[in-house]
C-alpha cells in the first residue's frame, strides 16, 4: 500500500477521491518530467558528439558577416569562423545575412511586444473597471 492510499483512507469520502486524484496527478506529472529530462539529456549527448565531429569543418569555414538576434536587440558578428560562431551563439538563434531582412524581423518582434503590452494593459483596465462597478454597487446598498 502506498502512503497516500493509507492517508486517503482516513479522509471523509468527499475529500478522499479529490486527494487521491491530486496525488496521482502529481506523481504522473513528476514521472513525465523525469522522462522529459532524460530525453533532453540523451539529445544533448547525441548533439555533443555530432558537434565534435563537425568541429573540423566549422574551424576551416569562415562565417559570413551576420546579424544575430539577441533578446530584443540585434548584434553584428563579423570575422568569425563557423566554429567560433557556434561557440558564441545558441544554435536556435535567428541569424540574417541580409541587413533589411534583419531589420524587418527586429521591427516585427518589437510590434509583437507592443501588441502584447496593449493586450495586458487592456485586460488590467477591464479588471479595474469591474472592480469599480462592484465597489459602486456596494456603496448603493
Amino acid at each position, binding site marked *: 500500500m502506498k502512503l497516500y492510499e*493509507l*492517508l486517503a483512507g*482516513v479522509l*471523509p469520502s468527499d475529500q478522499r477521491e479529490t486527494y487521491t486524484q491530486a*496525488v496521482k496527478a502529481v506523481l504522473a506529472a513528476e514521472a513525465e518530467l523525469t522522462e522529459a529530462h532524460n530525453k533532453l539529456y540523451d539529445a544533448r549527448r*547525441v548533439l555533443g558528439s555530432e558537434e565534435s565531429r563537425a568541429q573540423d569543418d*566549422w574551424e576551416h569555414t569562415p562565417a559570413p558577416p551576420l546579424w544575430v538576434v539577441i533578446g530584443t536587440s540585434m548584434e553584428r558578428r563579423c570575422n568569425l569562423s563557423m566554429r567560433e560562431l557556434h561557440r558564441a*551563439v545558441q*544554435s536556435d538563434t535567428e541569424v540574417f545575412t541580409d541587413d533589411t531582412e534583419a531589420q524587418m524581423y527586429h521591427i516585427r518582434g518589437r510590434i509583437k511586444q507592443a501588441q502584447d503590452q496593449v493586450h495586458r494593459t487592456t485586460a488590467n483596465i477591464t479588471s479595474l473597471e469591474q472592480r469599480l462597478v462592484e465597489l459602486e454597487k456596494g456603496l448603493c446598498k
Partner: protein
Amino acid sequence: MKLYEKLAASLPQPMRDQYVSTVETLLRTRREVFAAQAAYKAADTAYVNLLPDVGMCLQLVTYDELWVFIPDESRYQEVALGRHAIDIMGSYSTDRDVFETEAEACEALIAHQIAEESKTIAAAQNRIDSLKADLERLRK
C-alpha cells in the same frame, strides 16, 4: 534562418542532415521539458491547495503501528507508535510503500531482495553469454 541551419550548410552530406535532425530533436525535447514543467507545477499547485483541508482531518488520526519501506537501504522501519498521520505525511513521500504490520513489511523486503538478486544473476548471465560468444568467434 536559424544559426544551426547556417552551420549545417557548411557540413558535407550525410553529416548535414544528421546534424539538423539532431538539433531539431534537441529543440523539440526542450519544448517537451518546458511543457512537462508547466504540467507538474499545475498539478503540484492543485495538490498544495488541498493540503489545509486534508491536514485538518489528518491531525485527528494517530497510528499505533506503521512500517515504512526504505528501498535504497533495503530495509523497513517502524515509524508510528502513536504518531499523527499529518506528521507521517510530512516525513515521507506520498508514493512510499507502507505496511500496517511487521509481517507485511518483512514479506515486501524479501520480495525486493529477491528482485535485486535476480537482476544481479541476469547481468552475470548476460556477461557469461557474451564471453562465450567471444570465445566461439576466436575458435572460428
